[in-house]
């Protein structure tokens, strides 16, 4: 990764050597990454790689011990989560985290908690219902009674209600049927294309993520071990082997497996 200023022109989000701990456990071990404005960037990694921790560090739920997070050229590490939402970062957490005993409509209303421009909020609600007609059908229903897929849509819609410039998505495919995953990812792509929302998508489902993303990073045990444009990652033999579940045929593949169990 080059560190010239030109290389970062147009990056809405920049992480530099971020280290985040859970007590003594170093979950993120010096991560640097760029998210260019208007693109979809994915961070791929196995369970426990540190994906969720990176997103929590960006949205201010956790503070990094070291390193910097810049959003629109402004350092935001250590800021209050509410302030970061206000600046334009919305986080769709892992496992949806809807408000189970509130209606779908009230959940969406809370997504716009920090906004006071009622007219625009109403417009955005219409927009969310346009993207997710099923939410409109279930507007009066309690969020806890929705199916997993509908809850994911609600979590996405709720985040959109903050009218974010940057959307952080934590494993939106988790626990959903392949068909639903396809549906959700199609909407993610549409939101990016139609609203110009920049998206940082964290996934274990590398196949789906690389299909919608423009650029990808591979995270292993808290470190970025590989990065590149999505097509490049999709074409890369090692990525295919480790993250797309496509084992190489023949002796060559097995040899490589032995040689390079871990990246780097």
């Amino acid at each position, binding site marked *: 990764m080059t560190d010239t200023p030109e290389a970062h022109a147009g990056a809405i989000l920049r992480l530099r050597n971020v280290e985040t701990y859970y007590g003594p456990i170093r979950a993120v071990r010096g991560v640097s990454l760029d998210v260019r404005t208007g693109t979809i960037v994915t961070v791929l990694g196995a369970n426990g790689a540190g994906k969720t921790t990176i997103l929590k560090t960006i*949205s201010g*739920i956790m503070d990094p011990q070291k390193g910097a997070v810049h959003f629109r050229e402004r350092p935001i590490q250590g800021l209050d*989560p*509410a302030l*970061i*939402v*206000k600046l334009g970062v*919305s*986080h769709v*957490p892992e496992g949806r*985290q*809807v*408000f*189970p*005993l*509130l209606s779908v409509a*009230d959940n969406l*209303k*809370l*997504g716009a*908690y*920090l906004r006071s421009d009622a007219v625009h909020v109403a417009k955005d609600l219409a927009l969310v219902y346009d993207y997710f007609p099923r939410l409109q059908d279930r507007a009066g229903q309690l969020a*806890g009674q929705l199916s*997993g897929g509908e809850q994911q849509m609600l979590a996405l819609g*709720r*985040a959109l209600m*903050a009218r974010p410039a940057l959307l952080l998505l934590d494993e939106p495919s988790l*626990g959903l049927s392949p068909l639903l995953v396809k549906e959700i990812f199609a909407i993610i792509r549409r939101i990016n294309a139609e609203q110009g929302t920049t998206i940082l998508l964290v996934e274990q489902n590398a196949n789906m993520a690389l299909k919608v993303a423009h650029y990808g990073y591979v995270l292993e045990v808290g470190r970025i071990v590989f990065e590149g444009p999505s097509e490049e990652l999709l074409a890369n033999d090692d990525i295919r082997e480790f993250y797309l579940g496509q084992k190489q045929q023949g002796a060559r593949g097995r040899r490589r497996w032995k040689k390079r169990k871990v990246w780097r």
Partner: protein
Amino acid sequence: MERVFAALWRLLVAAALLGFVAPPVLAALGLVSGADLVNYLQQVVSGAALGCVYALVALGIVLIYKATETINFAQGELMMLGAFLCFTFVAILGLPFWAGALLGIGACAVLGMATDRIVVRPVVGQPAFAIVMVTLGFGFVARSLASVIPGWGTDTHTIVTPFANQIVALGPVVISQDHAAIIVATALLCGLLYLFFTHTKLGLAMQAASQNQLAAYYMGIPVKTVFTMIWGVSAGVAAIAGLMLAPIAFVHTQMGMIIFKAFPAAVLGGFGSIPGAIVGGLVIGIVEALAGFYLPEGFKDVAAYVVLLVVLLLKPEGIFGHVRKKKV
């Protein structure tokens, strides 16, 4: 076994409702004298009035519990302080009743918020036991402080309400206006709280922070401030309960002992359920009044716990509680 309990529970509810409506029916059939019916109804009304006070204290406990998972053992003392504050503004400073009452309620709300910030917040994250001790300790301190404040002391006081010594006659049933005012005010307060929690941004944020704290943070809801405000609402409701209790009991430093009725009310309704707290309070108030009138002396004091034990035996989750199911 569960089926048997469920069936017995239904039987109990049916019997209770039947017992409740039986006297008027029996009177209509001429099997019970009119005077007996009037006695019965008067007990029910005065029991319901006291039950409203239990309900409001229970409601405060439940609000704080739902939001912060802290059980506030000092909720009774918050009520006591609220009553004394109202007493201060109305009786000591001589303000008009409504102005003094509002000031007292507001002051108690502020006190509740301060309690959260200064007393409870520092121990959040410690073992549950520590939080229990802190609220219990706060209750003790509040009682002793109240007893040394000039004008408060260990004496009993009264607050003269606009309703004192007046009656409402519903046909032959005569209700003191104080009792009627308690019931009406509780109904109004519940309606207001309902509208507040479902139709205002702050109320929704309070519900959201209670249901999923982390998600509330993700929305930019200032969760800690919201919790402090819930303590404020809870203490304000406690002050209203104290103000209501003042004309039918007295204002004194030990009035916080009402928590021994409010807790059974909250548990009876299904701990954590707001409608449950209200219904639980009413049931305990009415059963207590009827037990005091019809049963030998002594039953009145244990009535709340007898009801609680029977209900918990048959329906451990309480009247409105639901068995916690793990979500997928």
